[in-house]
């Protein structure tokens, strides 16, 4: 997949009001594949933590019998981290403000995940 294609996928996410940035992260090693982040967000550290959380969550969910994760959402006092794993093994990640429309970001993340395969 070209970087332009990743860019288009990230555009789907970052155009949602309240989204402060989006990334494509390799789930296996936590490295950044592509990013569109607002200034001040440390992409490499975020990618590593998101991938690590995703891995732990995937294992816990599989052990619980609820299957692989389709979407997850870390809720914080002043914002949120939203993640959709794509079939190819990458994570679509969005950082959002507290008042963002979570449902809308979820939809765009799922569309982006479909686009990157």
């Amino acid at each position, binding site marked *: 997949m070209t970087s332009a294609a990743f860019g288009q996928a990230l555009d789907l996410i970052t155009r949602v009001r309240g989204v402060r940035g989006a990334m494509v992260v390799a789930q296996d090693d936590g490295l950044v594949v592509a990013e569109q982040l607002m200034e*001040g*967000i*440390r992409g490499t*550290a*975020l990618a590593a*933590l*998101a991938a*690590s*959380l995703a891995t*732990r*969550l995937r*294992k*816990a*969910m599989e*052990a*619980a*019998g*609820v*299957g*692989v*994760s*389709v*979407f*997850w*959402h*870390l*809720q*914080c*006092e*002043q*914002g*949120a*981290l939203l993640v959709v794993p794509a079939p190819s093994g990458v994570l679509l990640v969005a*950082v959002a403000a507290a008042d963002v429309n979570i449902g809308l970001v979820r939809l765009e993340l799922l569309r982006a995940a479909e686009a990157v395969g």
Partner: protein
Amino acid sequence: MADDIKALSAQLAQEPQSLVFLRLGELLRQKRQFDAARRVALLGLERHPHLADAHDLLARILADLHDYEHAFDEWDMTLRIAPEHTGALKGLAFLYFKVGDLAQAEAHLHLAKRIAPEDASIDQAIAMARGGLEPAPAAERRSDASAAAATPATQAATAPLEESRVFAGLEGAQEGLLLVDTAGLVLGGALRSPAGEDVTDAVAAYLAGVSQEAARTAKLLGLGSWRGLSAEGRHGHVHLAPPTAESLLLVVRDRGVPLGRLAILAQRAVQAARRWLERQA
């Protein structure tokens, strides 16, 4: 009693707008015909959605069915409509007792006592909630709906303290709620897979460190502290929340339970977990 049920059913069929459903629903509940009782109560609520006694009736039926979460909602609604409804106060006291919150149980019973000082069953329930007296005989089950509301409170007082486990009284306490420490050791609750297999320890082990990583991620992003993590799986939904910095709560439900509702369930479980952890300290 069977004749009464027949007669009341006939009366309700003739006068569907009447309040006879309250007596019929209560009779069915006493006969432990809970499905029929619930149908009668729900039909009554469709016609009288702002009738406190109707919500109270449904709550008692749900409590008998051990659906404590929805019983709580119905008694809560009863009190919103009629703040001095002693049946609802006693019912909520029962539910608080079930989750081990004896202080709240007693507070609700004291409030009920102020409203109905002549009701001796409340004194018995207060004494038993304190755990200092022998259990009183079971409340006489009378046929009128408001009097029968005494039953849950009395049941509360006679319920074994074993029910004071961390999630006792909450829906899914033994198959869909889990409290672990930061090392992934189980503090309370249990999990079963959709196939019925006990997966408590396996899931707990994978949850070790999740709380710290969630906190680190929130800090890195400058988003304050983390409040919860909702996840949608192919066959079910999960919600994680930190009752304290040293513990992590997991709620698991099938996909029929929306993520937003799961977060509400989790908040109730977090409150129960905090109270339980405080008592353990």
